[in-house]
């Protein structure tokens, strides 16, 4: 029982990081219709950018905020110089995925060139511990969980309550008609990449904070968890990604505790495959969630 409670505690903390990353991934996919595999390497980049700032003795949470901004801008640039030109040339959905896979590998090894393949660490950032209903959390875990929840709610309100959010959904559904309405869809797409990239940056730093040490494979190994969470929650649904992140996080930690840590990744894959078979549109199927999204 103690083992289970511990695993659930870890699972919630891991789940929050997964959710943080999954929301960005999910919204990016949902709005810009690009399944961006480079997202994982961008998280790795975030961890190392954060690491660099940390060496300047900047507070770790400020590091997270700065890194978010950096990765947000980097994502906009990435989309503009690689993905948009491909789309303009009429590259297929799959073609674009392959381009992002290639870019992911290039970026990952570019990182190796700069920082090497050795393990890095953010050092001891966890702070005091806190007990909630038998679950033990470190201060940094609590901050990450709160940040995740706040960003999730923010994203949801943005998409449903604001003019720009509705324009984002309209652009994702039908870019031509959105343009016929006078919407500057290029800006909407930039804005989408800025926000989702910022989430990616925050998730990368959060992941680095919560792992003992990391190297250039940090984001790429984590990507499968985020994809599983995003698919589980339904693509483009911020709340779905949060629930998906929690489920994937807890399931993988419980599996790790009861069988072997080696099964952690397997669980993510198993969830992903089952979801694709059973409910390809996520727990909250498209119609249902779009409806909830629109229920302002």
């Amino acid at each position, binding site marked *: 029982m103690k083992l289970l409670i511990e695993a659930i505690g870890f699972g919630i903390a891991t789940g929050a990081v997964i959710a943080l990353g999954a929301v960005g991934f999910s919204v990016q996919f949902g709005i810009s219709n690009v399944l961006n595999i480079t997202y994982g390497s961008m998280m790795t980049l975030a961890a190392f950018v954060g690491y660099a700032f940390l060496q300047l003795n900047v507070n770790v949470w400020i590091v997270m905020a700065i890194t978010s901004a950096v990765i947000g801008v980097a994502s906009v640039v990435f989309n503009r110089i690689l993905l948009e030109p491909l789309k303009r040339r009429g590259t297929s959905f799959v073609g674009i995925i392959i381009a992002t896979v290639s870019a992911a590998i290039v970026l990952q090894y570019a990182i190796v060139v700069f920082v090497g393949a050795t393990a890095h660490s953010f050092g001891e950032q966890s702070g005091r511990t806190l007990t909630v209903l038998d679950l033990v959390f470190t201060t940094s875990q609590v901050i990450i969980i709160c940040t995740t929840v706040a960003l999730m709610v923010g994203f949801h309100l943005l998409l449903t309550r604001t003019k720009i959010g509705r*324009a984002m*959904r309209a652009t994702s*559904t039908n870019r*031509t*008609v959105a343009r016929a309405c*006078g*919407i500057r869809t290029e800006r909407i797409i930039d804005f989408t990449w800025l926000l989702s990239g910022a989430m990616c940056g925050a998730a990368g730093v959060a992941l680095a904070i919560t792992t003992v040490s990391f190297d250039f494979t940090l984001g790429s190994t984590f990507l499968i968890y985020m994809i599983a969470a995003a698919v589980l929650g339904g693509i483009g649904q911020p709340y779905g990604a949060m629930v998906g992140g929690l489920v994937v996080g807890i399931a993988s930690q419980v599996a790790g505790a009861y069988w072997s840590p080696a099964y952690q990744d397997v669980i993510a894959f198993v969830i992903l495959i089952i979801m694709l078979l059973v409910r390809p549109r996520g727990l909250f199927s*498209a119609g249902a969630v779009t409806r909830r999204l629109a229920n302002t």
Partner: protein
Amino acid sequence: MPTSSAERTGGGGSALATRGLVAGYGDVVVVHGVDLDVAEGRLVTVVGPNGAGKSTLLKAILGLSRVMDGHVVLDGDDVTGQPLELLARRGIGYVPQVDDVFETLRVSENLEMGGYLLDKSERAARVDEVLEIFPALKPKMRRYLGTMSGGERKMTAVARALMLAPRVLVLDEPTAGLSPALTRVVLEEQARALASHGKAVLLVEQKAHAALEISDWAYVLVRGAVAKSAPAREVLADPDMAEIFLGAAVRDGGVK
């Protein structure tokens, strides 16, 4: 623009015109040098067999297909290849032939998006006005477009385009899938009425007879070129027309 345009359309100069427009996709040329004029207050219809290049012509005007040569002129300004969102801001409304609505949004949200450039109170007032035109949409405001019939979608698409009260309206088969009664509503009470209220309306229609009856001017497009440009009445009365139409359609394998 040249005086000939005013004469041809019988209006006071063209709101929208093309000159020697050559357009297509990639390296494929579909539209071969089209001259077209739509004056304020006029309803101009382009008819022609399937695959003639009607939609491509409209897309070229709206910056959506590739313009290889020639010009698009809006209110006397060259707007060739300008992005659609800027054209929309300059007063062109466009309803595409397919993919003409926001599928995952409600009817109400489609209309709201149509009025994206308006401020909140203007938008609400305009929604009411547009719903007066399509009262059938009123009870369906909360429905998602993905769950609606073809005719309901078309109504929503046209209603959405009307939200900005465009001065120039470009409609690609707005009556496709509509019942005869609604076709009449869209053609007579909408397209015709809008033109009578001073808008320039450019219409592409398969329902050639119904469209020509209410149009001022007609262009017959065959294999990307204008085969005939004349007052709609004349085209309607021309005994060759049916033959050109069907003949070309059969040759292009385009008869449905």
